[in-house]
């Protein structure tokens, strides 16, 4: 039986479960950060629904260029919690060998590209990837996410311009969470973000990114458009950053919170209420989903914390395929000093 539209009960429960897992994980990371176990974090709280909707609609072969705040998207896409922790802890099991700050993920096997810090700078890469996929006749489209602040960058302009001129299948999704650190969207731009495609002949649409059902419905149209080969599409998902910008940020300096964790307008709470109303779940199963999430998240961190860090001398690897004499010489300096 479908909960709403095409959404089956199982799908809804899975989405809800992953949203809860993401929220619980996020909280856990923040407390681990406070204890010095994890170095830094960019919370994803509040943005779970649009992220989960994206993962629900994306095929395996679709290539996702996410950004640093896409935790829920990764969980829904099936990335194991352990791998996520390994990156956050930058231990020796981290696929990226501890090279990046927490939340800068890359999961090649899940067709999730690579996150970097400079805002927007992944966007021009998406059009190149889309070009490559078309050229090599690979299945799938390219999907990319970014914040409202990112729409001001030159990279955003460059990417939309190229996608349009070369008619590339890139689905641009702005997670407009209202803020770029302390700068509200109203100071970032004087126009609606979904209308920015007009400068390139790229159609756009706004969706309520805090509502799973609305996100799915709105995104479906965008996915269909891009999949049909018509070209790029720009979605603006209205959402809200519940937490601080990062663990280094103090939002009290610049705003009054509009949505808080667990409040009636919290997107997870909204889905929960809907599911309860529709009788898809009862409060016991909600309790159990939450408890299971907590247990998994606590236990897995415990477990991953025992994995040792990388070797210091590994910092000289991967600058090039083969280190030059410079890296080799510098590596010897570290080794000699041991």
């Amino acid at each position, binding site marked *: 039986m479908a909960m709403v539209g095409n959404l089956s009960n199982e799908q809804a429960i899975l989405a809800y479960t992953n949203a809860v897992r993401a929220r619980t994980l996020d909280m856990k990371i923040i407390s681990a950060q406070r204890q010095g176990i994890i170095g830094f974090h960019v919370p994803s709280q509040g943005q779970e629904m649009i992220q989960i909707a994206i993962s629900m609609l994306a095929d395996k072969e679709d290539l996702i260029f996410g950004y640093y705040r896409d935790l829920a998207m990764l969980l829904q896409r099936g990335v194991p919690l352990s791998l996520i922790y390994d990156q956050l802890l930058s231990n020796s099991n981290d696929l990226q060998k501890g090279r990046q700050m927490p939340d800068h993920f890359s999961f090649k096997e899940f067709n999730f590209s690579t996150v970097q810090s400079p805002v927007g700078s992944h966007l021009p890469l998406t059009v190149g990837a889309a070009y490559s996929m078309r050229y090599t006749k690979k299945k799938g489209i390219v999907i990319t996410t970014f914040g409202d602040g990112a729409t001001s*960058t030159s990279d955003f302009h460059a990417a939309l311009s190229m996608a349009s001129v070369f008619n590339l299948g890139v689905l641009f999704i702005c997670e407009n969470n209202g803020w770029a650190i302390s700068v509200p969207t109203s100071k970032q731009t004087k126009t609606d973000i979904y209308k920015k495609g007009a400068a390139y002949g790229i159609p756009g649409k706004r969706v309520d990114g805090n509502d799973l059902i609305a996100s799915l419905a709105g995104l479906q149209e965008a996915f269909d458009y891009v999949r049909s080969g018509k070209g790029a599409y720009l979605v603006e998902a209205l959402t809200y950053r519940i937490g601080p910008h990062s663990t280094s940020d103090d939002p009290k300096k610049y705003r009054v919170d509009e949505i808080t964790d667990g409040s009636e307008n919290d997107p997870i709470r909204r889905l929960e209420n809907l599911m309860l109303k529709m009788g898809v779940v009862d409060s016991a199963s909600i309790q159990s989903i939450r408890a299971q999430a907590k247990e998994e998240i606590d236990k897995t961190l415990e477990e991953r914390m025992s994995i040792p860090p990388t070797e210091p001398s590994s910092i000289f690897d991967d600058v090039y395929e083969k280190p030059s004499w410079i890296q080799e010489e510098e590596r010897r300096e570290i080794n000699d000093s041991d």
Partner: protein
Amino acid sequence: MTQINMVQSLNRSIDQLMAEDERIVVLGEDVGRDGGVFRVTDNLLNKYGEERVLDTPLNELAIIGMATGMAMYGLKPFAEIQFQDYIFPAFDQIVNNIAKVRYRTGGRFNVPLIIRTPYGGGVRGGLYHSQSGEAYFAHTAGLTVVTPSNPYDAKGLLVSAYRMNDPVIFLEPKRLYRANKKEVPDDLFEVEIGKAAKLKEGDDVSIITYGSMVPTVMSTVEKNGVNADVIDLRTLLPMDVSAILATAKKTGRVVIVHEAPRTLGVGAEISALIAERAIDSLLAPIVRVTGYDIPFPYSHEEFYLPDEKRIMTAINRVLKY
């Protein structure tokens, strides 16, 4: 006269200058309400209003380009780039406009602009919050590049930069923002641009450094009782060639310390100046202790950053040579 840290010193200096000179406007990401992510522009919005303290959209090219236009037409902008790692989207404006406007117009236009930006590692910021890119700027004629190593110089250099009629890249070693306090006079005073500071007199070896590495160098020589001449360059373009040559000639043994990667780092130019002009005084190789030629890693940054041990190894090497 009070004991303040570098953030406080910069904040007060900007405040003081803004109170004196209406032409000054501050612009950048989060410089207003938030007071800058490091709080260097704290409270300026309250004091001077939105016309003079501009929270900008997220585009460094736009910030620097707009500031350039302001500077060419009568204002004195203090632009902030949130991390030096994020200045590169504006690199074309810096290299092709800012550094060349006076030249290309035969001196009829100039760009009296200060670009402030925190640089360097030591805050567990990984590849994109730790870079030391000073060499990119110091290679660019038309720019002036300075970096203070303490709260006093921070004020003095900022005041001097403010009084220049040309663009200044003002690099703030973020690791030192709150690392120590120093007495800083309340009045405006200058630290001369182009002039190095002699931090310690010594005869056996010269250590030439600047910015973020200065405290590490000082603690190394103090703890180990090294009889060293220690130079804090303070200005990276134009470098104080007299101070560099004088110390090289005095001791004959030179160690250069900086955090940026070695290859074509500022140390290369220091070394080349000495090899060109004081070769006969040298009693040992000129040794560079620097960051490595790799992207700045998130893990093991303590290995990346020159520390007392690496500096002491280099000192011993030239002393024993």
